[in-house]
């Protein structure tokens, strides 16, 4: 009797393994769902809708994009996807801002639970109001060095990617600005236009209309490359005047999608192939150009490395700002120095 049960159990087990590996081979057999952790219409949502549509072409099934915003830094959507079966039929659409979720008490997982694909992001830049006396970053930095904290700066919310860029700029140049926190990028940019603060750091995608409309004057890109902007000219990279910045920057947005690290390897491979062919599509390239996004195309281990970097940077900065509820060391998030 015992033997029969063992045999039965073994055969059941074998069939399960067999079917699951066959299922993975046949992947995808049905529609895939992409759960975006931010609300509809945001940058992450728009990027995910496009890349999903392109990936669907080569996977030959639909990828339905839904939104599940809420919780702390996207924790609701991430925990939902993590609870689903790790079969590759549920993807999560995310961005760099979710990496702070764990230290802020949103959930108790590290970013290493994901197998990510990074589409790209819009580079950050520093701008002043159109009637400001400053025309170059050097003038601004020289002035604030004479009088530390005399110049007020805004950069989205405290602990946001733009705030991290401001902190990196201060570390790399030795300048000390008086940081004024705003609830988001739009109010931060408005504050420069109303004259409440002197400078703002947000992304090019968020500023381009205001620059072209003559409301903001860009001083420098916080990435290695100069940026051409129709109707304005070329915005120089801050790295030329301050080579020291290369140690701290760039800190780029990483918008993309991910599957659970537990999904079978051949499913990961199929998704990677679909992702890479989608990244080559003219639709994505045109959109990126029109909206001032820089494409990345990293996936798997390389993308994980990028997310580990962002996770360490965000988590420890939030910890220093007093915004962390859970210490990064409890979660096992290494410091940036330990990471390298």
């Amino acid at each position, binding site marked *: 009797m015992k033997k029969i049960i063992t045999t039965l159990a073994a055969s059941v087990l074998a069939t399960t393994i067999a079917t699951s590996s066959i299922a993975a081979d046949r992947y995808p057999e049905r529609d895939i769902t992409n759960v975006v952790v931010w609300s*509809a219409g945001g940058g992450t949502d728009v990027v995910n809708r496009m890349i999903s549509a392109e990936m669907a072409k080569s996977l030959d099934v639909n990828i339905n994009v839904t939104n599940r915003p809420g919780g702390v830094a996207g924790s609701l959507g991430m925990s939902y996807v993590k609870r689903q079966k790790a079969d590759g039929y549920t993807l999560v659409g995310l961005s760099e801002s979710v990496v702070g979720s764990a230290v802020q008490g949103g959930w108790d997982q590290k970013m290493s639970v994901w197998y990510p694909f990074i589409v790209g992001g819009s580079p950050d830049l520093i701008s002043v109001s159109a009637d400001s006396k400053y025309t170059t970053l050097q003038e601004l930095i020289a002035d604030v060095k004479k009088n530390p904290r005399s110049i007020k700066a805004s950069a989205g919310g405290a602990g946001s990617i733009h705030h991290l860029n401001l902190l990196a700029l201060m570390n790399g140049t030795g300048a000390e600005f008086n940081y004024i926190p705003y609830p988001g990028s739009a109010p931060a940019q408005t504050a420069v236009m109303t004259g409440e603060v002197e400078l703002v750091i947000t992304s090019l995608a968020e500023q381009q209309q205001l620059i072209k409309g003559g409301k903001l004057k860009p001083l420098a890109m916080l990435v290695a490359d100069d940026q051409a902007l129709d109707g304005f000219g070329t915005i120089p990279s801050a790295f030329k005047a301050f080579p020291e910045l290369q140690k701290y920057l760039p800190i780029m947005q990483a918008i993309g999608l991910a599957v659970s690290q537990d999904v079978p390897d051949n499913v990961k491979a199929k998704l990677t192939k679909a992702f890479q062919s989608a990244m080559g599509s003219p639709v994505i390239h045109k959109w990126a150009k029109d909206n001032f996004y820089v494409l990345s195309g990293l996936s798997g281990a390389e993308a994980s490395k990028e997310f580990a970097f962002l996770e360490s940077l965000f988590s420890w900065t939030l910890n220093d700002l007093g915004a962390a509820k859970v210490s990064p060391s409890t979660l096992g998030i290494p410091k940036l120095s330990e990471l390298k």
Partner: protein
Amino acid sequence: MDILASFSVFGSTLLSLLSSPTNLMILMGASFFGIIFGALPGLTATLGVALLTTLTYGMDVNTALIALLGLYVGAIYGGSYPSILINIPGTAAAAATALDGFPLAQKGEGGRALGLTTTASLIGTLLGILVLVIAAPLVAQMALQFTSFEFFLLALFGILISGTLTSPDLVIKGWIAGLIGLGLSTIGRDPLQFFPRFTFDMPDLDQGLEVVPVLIGAFGIPQVIKALRNRESLGVMKQFGRILPEWKTLFKNRMNIARSSMIGIGIGAVPGIGEDIAGWVSYGAAKNTSKHPETFGKGEPQGIIASETANNACIGGALIPLLTLGIPGSPPAAMLLGALMLHGITPGPMIVVESPNFLIEVTAILVLCSIAMWLNGMFLAKQVVKVLQIPASIFLPVVTLMCILGSYALGLNIFNLYLMVIVGVFAYFLDEMKYPISPLVIGVILGPMADESLRRALMVSEGDLMPFIERPICIALISIIVLIVMTKAPFYQQCKKSFFSLFKK
């Protein structure tokens, strides 16, 4: 672009939209759902626009805008239904409407109140659109005069004015209720430095109190308890009243309508605040300029017209900074910004250059939406008045269920249900002691803005209070605030009396 060309674009957009039956169906449908959204406690214009955004992904831009703006306009109007009929405002924007709408309904003139609301909302929306078209750059420039200092004073003003207007006996009770609301709004991590305030280590309190459960609890629960206690129905319907526009009443109120629209547009244009306080400010203005202010709060049509014109005029106002600067003027407009981005439109100063017809197209769509709202309203008002005939024993459980659903629907968080009940019971006792409830809710809504703006203003000025008396708009706001407080102080009344008695002798 000259005016003639604008008109031809406007006309052709209207025609092309109207010629498509799908568009017409979507227009009427979105407007209808908007009204329902506004009317159900807990479902707000902001939530409605957010939910609909995802559904519009496959549509072309104009159709999507018809759906979204139709819902927005409908929802701002729909909030007035429960305000008038059962004294439970469906949205905070409609709270001022309840002051005179509900007494009218109790007198048996619910139909008339709804009719006035419908037409006033239409006029308000249209006037808002008019200003959007002709004076957008000017108004946008005005909106840029508001810095953290002004935002703080504006929030304070909003709380004070609702306190002043709603107190049944002593004005100070309204202000006390407002202060309680302000106090409640400080719960949670402070947005500037993340310090946890009054959270008692409860994770649910970390993000602060959600407005919707507070709104529903504070307005809904006391009303249900009172009706149960008195064993009476919520309203009566002696006569149906006239739903169709009363041109005579409206004509008499032409100054009121013009003033309320201007207030609504102005408040809508200031980024971050909108419909929620526009109704209060215009109601206050109407009461203070009225020849018979004592009738306000007892079923005065002027009051309804003022608040409903203003909150709908806010829509045009809120779209001005959105379309010209990319800054949303009100919470639903912020959702609309997301929807526009989804369709590849980035609103901002370049929109006039990159797609010169866009503003005119939006105007045409808004005009259609307000007409759809009016038609739907005329049809619905007749039907919804009948809820007053439903016996309380059936109606009250339904209202209670709606309150519970509304609190839970947002974020699906069970904590919000407890919050609603606690706030509701607390509000009931406040109500029994003749403390008004509206200032408390307005305090919770505007509190974070007041708190954050004041502290940010002081960060910017490095602790200096001088900007409060150096900036022109600040001076104006402070003068109004001081005036409001002074005129209600017993000391001032005493002075006034003795001053006048000097002349009598």
